[in-house]
């Protein structure tokens, strides 16, 4: 990675996003699901921001400013944007982590034990990987019901093959190494070797992949709700906000859709660059 600043920027973005996932809904100035009664109010002009910021910090304002304006329903866009990681990031994190665990576990077994059943496993995973990702996720979530848990499971199904393939390739090379031979000569059973020796040495590619996968999973989660196959309204969620804000464009109200999109781009960029930096560091 050229210059550490890009890496530090990515680290800052991902940290903030994770913090928002934890505390976003509680620090939002307005209830993200409750109308303020002010409809389609534009964000304050940039020139007023310093004054408003000072006012907010000293508590001298009669009401919190609508930093990003309000939408058609009178919802505060800023509150919704910072409350959304609770939905987007936890779904993406859950899906990515579940795929990591499942994919790494199966990949280790498939790479270490040469058997017809593990060969079959790899073929099934290949077929899964050849499915059109977005359409597959859409079918699964729409037919299973649009609950958070189902979105996580759909993400898991879509991303597990990536981790399986990465870990299996690594485990295949590790299984031929001298230290595995030595452990076997020392009388260790295959499962002990797998857990104590092959696993720690095969984890790196999957862990590097994790960051980028979280980013893609956020995109997918937002995309699903954008087309109406994700979390139901009025949940604060970036894709849903863009979808609803698209209608507001007709009135010339750009703020309900522009800010959540910006949040997606910045967040996914952060996770992608972090993954990229880790990859260059460890390869």
């Amino acid at each position: 990675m050229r210059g550490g600043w890009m890496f530090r920027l990515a680290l800052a973005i991902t940290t903030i996003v994770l913090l928002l996932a934890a505390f976003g809904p509680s620090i939002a100035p307005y209830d993200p699901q409750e109308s303020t009664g002010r409809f389609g109010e534009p964000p304050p002009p940039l020139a007023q921001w310093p004054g408003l910021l000072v006012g907010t910090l000293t508590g001298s304002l009669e009401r919190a400013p609508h930093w990003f304006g309000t939408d058609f329903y009178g919802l505060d866009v800023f509150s919704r944007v910072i409350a959304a990681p609770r939905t987007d990031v936890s779904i993406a994190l859950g899906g990515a982590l579940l795929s990591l665990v499942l994919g790494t576990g199966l990949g280790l077994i498939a790479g270490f034990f040469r058997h017809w059943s593990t060969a079959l496993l790899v073929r099934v995973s290949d077929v899964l990987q050849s499915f059109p990702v977005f359409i597959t996720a859409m079918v699964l979530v729409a037919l299973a019901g649009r609950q958070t848990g189902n979105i996580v499971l759909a993400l898991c199904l879509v991303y597990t093959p990536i981790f399986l393939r990465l870990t299996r390739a690594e485990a295949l090379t590790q299984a031929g190494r001298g230290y595995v031979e030595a452990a076997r000569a020392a009388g260790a059973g295959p499962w002990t070797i797998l857990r104590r020796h092959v696993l720690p040495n095969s984890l790196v590619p999957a862990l590097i992949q994790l960051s980028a996968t979280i980013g893609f999973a956020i995109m997918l989660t937002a995309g699903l709700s954008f087309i109406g196959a994700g979390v139901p309204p009025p949940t604060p969620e970036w894709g849903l906000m863009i979808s609803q804000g698209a209608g507001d464009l007709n009135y010339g109200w750009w703020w309900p859709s522009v800010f959540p999109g910006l949040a997606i781009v910045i967040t996914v960029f952060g996770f992608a660059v972090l993954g990229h930096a880790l990859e260059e560091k460890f390869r």
Partner: protein
Amino acid sequence: MLRYVALRLGIALLQLVGLAIAVFFVIRLMPADPVARLVGLNASPEAYAQSKAALGLDRPVTEQLGAFLGVTPGQPGGGLLQGSLGDSWETQEPVVEELARTLPVTIEIVVLALLLATLLAIPLGMYAAMRPGGLADRSAYTWGLFAGTQPDYWWGLLFILLFAFTLGVAPAPLGRLDPVLVPPEQITGFILVDSLLRGRFDAFVSALHYLALPVITMVFTISGAIIKMIRQNTLRALRSEYVLHARACGLPEKTVARYALRAALTPTVTLIGIFFGVLLSSAVTLEKVFSISGAGQYAVRGILNFDYPAIQGVVLAVALVSLLVYLAVDLVHAALDPRARH
């Protein structure tokens, strides 16, 4: 060569059959109730049962599968073996016909976008790689970092806001043809081709006008990844020994660049093939933004309505197109890289 193509087509066909069976079972394993979706939740048990029988869902699953595959009768127009995907439960029209109408719409956009993105990315990526550390190189690198992180539907909205609503140079996102024009009669389904074949130049110009924004949006969101790929591959090629040799022979830099390009193109072709499938799938969101009734919108409608024949059809059609593109990519690959020919 011919034998290789036939073999690949045979494998693709087997994969499709496997996929068809997988899709068939996966959507039936889901806890969705298509009958309730069709007759409503307040329908009487008789109406429910009648509708269930009409959809063929009252029969055993194996019988349904047989009808779907075309091994046993029971589906109007036959099954997969007879080249039919059944009738849509929502519109009662044959799914194959609906796909023939909607799939070309999506393919047209994806092909145009990939073509434009590649034509843009090759000179940019090469220019960046020839002058490492320069401004072009750093911009290409930074842009490449954004690869795959762009929600295309959001950019589509921004472009509509800018070009259609503010500047007024692009038409409002109302499909793929000026609503006052009569669309040219369908021959291929690609509107640009059809309007030319029918001699409808007014429709051709209008279609270009309407295609511009969705295609530009797609080019914008995928160019980062393609530029990144070309830049990396050209850099690798420039460090190789045959380029060193070419330089040592005193060949002009232009010729050296051409050698490097050829080596850099091979992996890029593979990447573009993969992109084709990805874009076909992600066109779903973009089509919604521009109200284009392509395969993506068809998929969304089918999925949200629990229209099983339509879902099966879309998934199979997208998979078929992707498999054919992969085959084409491998053939181009073989033409570019002699090592891949065997």
